[in-house]
């Protein structure tokens, strides 16, 4: 190139520098000219003013940087009453309780299948006393939104005033509850019949096996209801959850977990996680281990979710509430049914 030739034939540094400077300033000039043309065109075409914004809007969206308020100038923790509509059951649920509600709603939680089945079983039984109990249970159910709780409490007071209405409102309410629950997706507990008394003759062997591994399964002679008590005495809660997650319809589970198994390369096959040597296990779909309530098992993970200590206590509440509920169903042993099945 010309420049290099000049270098080799008696370099004149000042001349070289002068040239460099010239080229550089020309480049800068050209760039500035380009900008001028852009602005000129914008003005002439009439869209130059679009870049401006009004003072009011600027102030409205200005970032606030003061202690005690967030960037919008709002005080912390005023969002306790936010609600959202569950995509599944269409009920209005308090936002901070949405996750546990959704878990139960989709039938994924450790107790949800048990509760669901009880509800199905009692739904078609007309006895008043039981529906009373049912109401009380559901009122205590933590995932109802605040609004609904208020409504329920109000109904209770109405009840007392006018006794002939009593049975009517209760029945109506029961009906609502029933309809809410039979609607859908207990996809994962689909092996449970919608018959009130579970009829072992109509269930297939697989269904019966899955049923009996998760619940006691004994059918009361008197009420014809099936005992839904989990099979093992204590660590019961967690093993139930373990199995109820695995057993229903392994086909759908496999399909849903296909991103783990598919030959297509996907973020799940991230090579760096596999390549690391510190891992004792490889990354498999997390199964819930039988540990105490708060942990979520899983190898190589940091669990975090609570926004405050309230969530941990609420989990404990749930398990306590369940313990209360269990003794209500009577379940006399009927060995004959077991013998038949075995």
């Amino acid at each position, binding site marked *: 190139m010309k420049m290099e030739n000049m270098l080799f034939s008696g370099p004149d540094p000042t001349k070289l520098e002068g040239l460099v400077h010239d080229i550089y300033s020309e480049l800068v000039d050209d760039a500035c000219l380009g900008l001028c043309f852009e602005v000129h065109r914008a003005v002439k075409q009439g869209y130059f003013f679009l870049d401006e914004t009004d003072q009011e809007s600027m102030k409205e*969206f200005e970032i606030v940087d003061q202690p005690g308020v967030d960037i919008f100038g709002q005080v912390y923790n005023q969002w306790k009453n936010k609600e959202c509509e569950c995509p599944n059951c269409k009920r209005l649920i308090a936002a901070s309780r949405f996750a546990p509600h959704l878990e139960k709603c989709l039938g994924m*939680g450790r107790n949800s299948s048990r509760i669901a089945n009880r509800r199905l079983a009692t739904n078609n039984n007309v006895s008043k006393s039981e529906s009373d109990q049912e109401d009380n249970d559901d009122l205590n159910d933590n995932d109802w939104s605040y609004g609904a709780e208020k409504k329920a409490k109000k109904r209770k007071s109405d009840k007392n005033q006018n006794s002939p209405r009593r049975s009517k409102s209760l029945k109506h309410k029961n009906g609502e509850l029933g309809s809410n629950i039979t609607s859908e997706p207990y996809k994962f507990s689909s092996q449970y019949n919608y018959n009130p008394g579970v009829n072992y003759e109509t269930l297939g062997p697989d269904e019966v096996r899955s049923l009996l591994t998760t619940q006691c399964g004994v059918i009361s002679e008197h009420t014809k209801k099936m005992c839904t008590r989990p099979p093992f005495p204590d660590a019961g809660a967690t093993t139930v959850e373990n199995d109820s997650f695995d057993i229903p319809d392994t086909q759908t589970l496999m399909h849903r977990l296909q991103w783990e198994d598919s030959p297509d390369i996907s973020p799940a096959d991230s*090579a760096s996680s596999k390549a690391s040597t510190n891992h004792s296990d490889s990354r498999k779909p997390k199964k819930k281990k039988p540990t105490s309530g708060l942990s979520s098992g899983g190898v190589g993970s940091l669990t975090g979710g609570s926004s405050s200590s309230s969530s941990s206590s609420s989990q404990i509440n749930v398990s306590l509430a369940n313990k209360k509920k269990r003794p209500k169903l009577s379940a006399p042993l009927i060995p004959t049914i077991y013998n038949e099945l075995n």
Partner: protein
Amino acid sequence: MSPAGCSHVNGYKVDNWKQNLRVIYQCFVWSGTAETRRRKAKSCVCHMCGAHLNRLHSCLYCVFFGCFTKKHIHEHAKNKRHNLAIDLLYGGIYCFVCQDYIYDKDMEQIAKEEQRKAWKLQGIALSLSAVSACVCFVFTGIGEKYTTWEPTKRELELLRHNPKRRKITTNCTIGLRGLINLGNTCFMNCIVQALTHTPLLRDFFLSDRHKCEMQSNSCLVCEMSQLFQEFYSGHRSPHIPFRLLHLVWTHARHLAGYEQQDAHEFLIAALDVLHRHCKGDTINDNGKKANNPNHCNCIIDQIFTGGLQSDVTCQVCHGVSTTIDPFWDISLDLPGSSTPFWPLSPGGDGSTVNGESHLSGSTTLTDCLRRFTRPEHLGSSAKIKCGGCHSYQESTKQLTMKKLPIVACFHLKRFEHSAKLRRKITTYVSFPLELDMTPFMASSKESRMNGQYQQSVDVLNNDNKYSLFAVVNHQGTLESGHYTSFIRQHKDQWFKCDDAIITKASIKDVLDSEGYLLFYHKQFLEYE
């Protein structure tokens, strides 16, 4: 005639004017090939003073070049009554009667077409800087330049009648929004904050690039798009991501359930579902859909996918077997009590790379990366069959980066599972604001092996430079805790996102934090 045009062009628009104009643009303004460029350089001189520069213009009526600054073209116009000239640098058309540059619709149309043609000829590699300008370069394909949006007449009218505007300046809250915790979902909130502040992803969704092909309402990419709309809506109240939660639980069953989860697992699952749902957006160079699952071109893969090279060297014959695997994140070991962290790779520079503050004894991100890319002796129990020796031999394995992703996510493995204990590793790891990945590239390793031990940091090579834009932190124990994140919204402006509460944070807060997931974005983007 557009309002910015003039009536004097009518005299020009006769006979074969379009073709003439095209020739002028092709030869003297937009040089597509090296040949035309040479011709332009040689022939475009002022006919009066011989200067190359000085805002050279060409007369539109005849073959005359004259410089603008010295008014030579003005003289020509006056003498010959040729009222139109074209600026050879930017193609603007000057009318000597109006004494101003004019913008005629038809002529501009021709100019644009010729410009596009020239760019296409100019070819493939065009470097560009500044992350925000990269939007349409990455998506519209090779050779098409990003053109600014221009309002039509009707739109201009509407805009004039409605002067209230929202502009995203550096001191603006638009783009930031809190997220309600739905019950142990802080891990999801942090990942959502990180993703919504990934510049490329933001640009993709805000320019409405997702074409949904899923029948039902369960497309996660659509929900993501909706999320961006929520973030940029200007609402102040925190957003409730309940639909997102529902969709994630539906598509990633292993994450479903009300319990505390790991943010990194959520990230991988979310990226995976987004990748699967992006099928409608994958377009090849030819415009056909990419059906090849091994070479997906969706936005997720474009942004997050990198290539990890694994070299296994046989100790006997020194033959190297190389494989390249894709990765979406980089999981790094930390110094824990059970696993030996040191020694580092031989020949690695011990000086402070990347300008990290190397307090005595504190681990840096670069240390972790060095460990990640060190040659590892596989031991006698793991002999590999060597293709060269045709027998089982001991070997060493080394990982290096073959291809870097646009967004690199570093996952610090802050947990320890040995026979005796399971605990969280809370060692402070210092990470830099700007990271240079050059020492960990496969190409660097090659040059090291060829004997060039002293690797001077090439200041001008910008390919491997990254900037930090999001940090996800975990407080608590292995079993239970709380996630918060720091995200960068504007250059050097950081915010702390604690579920529904967004507050301003200083860079010091960010760099002093523990760090669990670190998100880095490439500083300069290039075409493939």
